[in-house]
């Protein structure tokens, strides 16, 4: 199977060090990974394990101290602003906190219009743009007519995160990096949002990198799972391998920490 799959994003020896001298913090420590096209990958780890730092490096928002990232088999080149913009047409993200993800001075229209413009639709007639935006909104169960001329902070957290998915719907990137997209959202909205993400992936066939601290969720959605501890991948493999037959103590701990209904929570590992 693995031979048929095309490498989408891979990296070797990715390291990120913050600060110098005594204040040095190694956030990500020599990490290797191979993400294949169309896969759903979960990166699981507790807070402070370097997940978000890794995600920002994958997105090209911060540079890595060491190591190379390969995109579609070639070394990623984001040395200039133009190349970065080209790269970002292929990789997009959904951030953890929907409330801080939007510019509070921009209206929702402009958020969606930006996406259309990025896809080369700058010269489309306005009616066509509205049609595209309405389509994207209806995909995530929002009504564009109700959103137009509104500011993002007038929406609820769940709605904002759905709007974020509408953005992705318009952009149709090859890779979507979802950095704990549901951690700030209540359980009901969470299911809806995950459902929409899955649906979007099925339609576009994009690679979905799911960053989460919730190993149960990771098992539920992903094809392969990477377990991250203190900036290192301690275990990786398919979801079944890793979660049903964990080898590392840390993985077992993560699995045991998932609270289960009807069962007393084992706090001894915490």
């Amino acid at each position, binding site marked *: 199977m693995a031979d048929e799959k095309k490498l989408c994003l891979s990296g070797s020896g990715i390291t990120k060090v913050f600060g110098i001298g005594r204040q040095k913090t190694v956030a990500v420590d020599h990490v290797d990974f191979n993400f294949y096209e169309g896969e759903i990958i979960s990166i699981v780890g507790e807070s402070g394990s370097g997940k978000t730092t890794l995600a*920002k490096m994958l*997105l090209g*928002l911060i540079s890595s101290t060491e190591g190379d990232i390969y995109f579609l088999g070639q070394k990623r080149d984001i040395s200039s*602003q133009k190349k*970065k*913009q080209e790269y*970002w*047409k292929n990789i*997009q*993200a959904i*951030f*953890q*906190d929907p409330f*801080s*993800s*939007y*510019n*509070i*001075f*921009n209206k929702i229209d402009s958020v969606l219009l*930006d*996406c259309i*413009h*990025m896809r080369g639709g700058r010269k489309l007639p306005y009616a066509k743009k509205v049609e595209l935006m309405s389509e994207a909104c209806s995909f995530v169960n929002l009504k564009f007519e109700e959103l137009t001329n509104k500011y993002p902070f007038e929406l609820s957290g769940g709605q904002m995160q759905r709007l974020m998915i509408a953005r992705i719907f318009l952009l149709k990137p090859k890779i979507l990096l979802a950095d704990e997209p549901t951690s700030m959202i209540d359980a009901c909205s969470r299911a809806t949002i995950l459902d929409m993400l899955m649906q979007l992936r099925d339609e576009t066939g994009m690679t979905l990198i799911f960053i989460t601290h919730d190993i149960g969720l990771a098992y539920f959605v992903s094809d392969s799972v990477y377990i991250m501890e203190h900036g290192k991948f301690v275990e990786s493999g398919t979801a079944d391998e890793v979660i049903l037959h964990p080898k590392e103590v840390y993985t077992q701990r993560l699995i045991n920490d998932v609270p289960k209904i009807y069962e007393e929570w084992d706090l001894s590992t915490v």
Partner: protein
Amino acid sequence: MKHIIRQVFHSGKFVVGFCIFVTILLVVIIYPLFITDSPLAILGQGTFFPPGIYVSTFDSINSPTTYTLDLNDAAAVRIANKLSSDDRLAIKDWLLVAGIPEDQIDITDTKKLLDQWSSNYDPKKNIPGMTNAKRNYFVRLDNSLKGLLSAEGAIIATKNPETGILEQTGIVNQSDYVNINQVASVRWLPLGTDNFGRDVLNELVKATVVSLQIGFVAGIIATLIGLTLGLLAGYIGGIADDVIMFITNLFTVIPSFVLLILISFSIGQEQRGAFTIAVVIGFTSWVWTARAVRSQVVSLRNRDHVNLSKLSGHSIVHIILTDILPYIASYVIMALILQISSGILAEAGLSILGLGPRTTDVPTLGLMMNWAMIYQAQILGKWWAYFPVLLTIALITFSMNLMNTGLDQVFNPALRD
């Protein structure tokens, strides 16, 4: 936006500051529309004429109609005007020295006092321990007392152009009055004149305009430089940040006022216009704005909305203008207001030292202070030459700082009462 403005005007401090500032602004805009005299025109032949209404003596003598009013206290007021209680005490002192027993001197009985004075006063008499100034004072007093009690009028005489002989043309009785509205030439000088004989109020209005302009130009230049450098250093980071912060720190350690003095001095008196001074002030006072903007931008640039904007393919300029600048706009406006008021103060400080704009074009608040100081208005007690200027400077900076505090309360909820 509308919401923010409404909120700003709900802040009491801002409203008070705004009202004071707008009042000053309205006065300096409206006043020149009615009084079109040149602010630097020299009216008075002398220094520091006190505030008041100036009536032409010549015109009032030649007033077409004269009125006779019998006012009981007119004579008493006239005498009191020339012979104050201090003068009476001085006369008593003289009479005591002249050998008149104390019980015979009654300073409340004007007639008897003047009789005793005229029979005993001798300008040549040398009293031991009397200063020259005091001696001159008695000479002046003696002259002014002549004819004080006389009920006669004054005769007006003109020279006959043919014979050269004075001929009586009229008489002014003590009970004659003119109506001030009928006198041809009357000039109201609400704040008197300054050392050059200029109308202080007229000059003050013009000076306020110029000082405000200097403040605005200096404030805008300082804020623009500080904002640009702060944004670049904060957003781009890396070497650009290091270089800009090095320059900024360099300027921080050199006191900007010393720098201001040195630059002003090297420009030279003739080249220093008001605008030049404003630019110089602007170029020396951007440091703290740059530092503050940089620190704000550093904390902003790693926020998710900036990352999202980057992912949406926006250019650096676009991100700075739409994702960074609006978030620090409130701070920048407050910094601008503070820079304007400190620009006005810096100009006043420079001008007092004699390093302000050249004195021939326009008055500024600082220059007026400088002139008043050089001509020792504060020693001579000519309050009208410097106190209104002080008050104007204080009101402008006070109102601006008040507006700033009000804005701070609105934009920074932690400071609200």
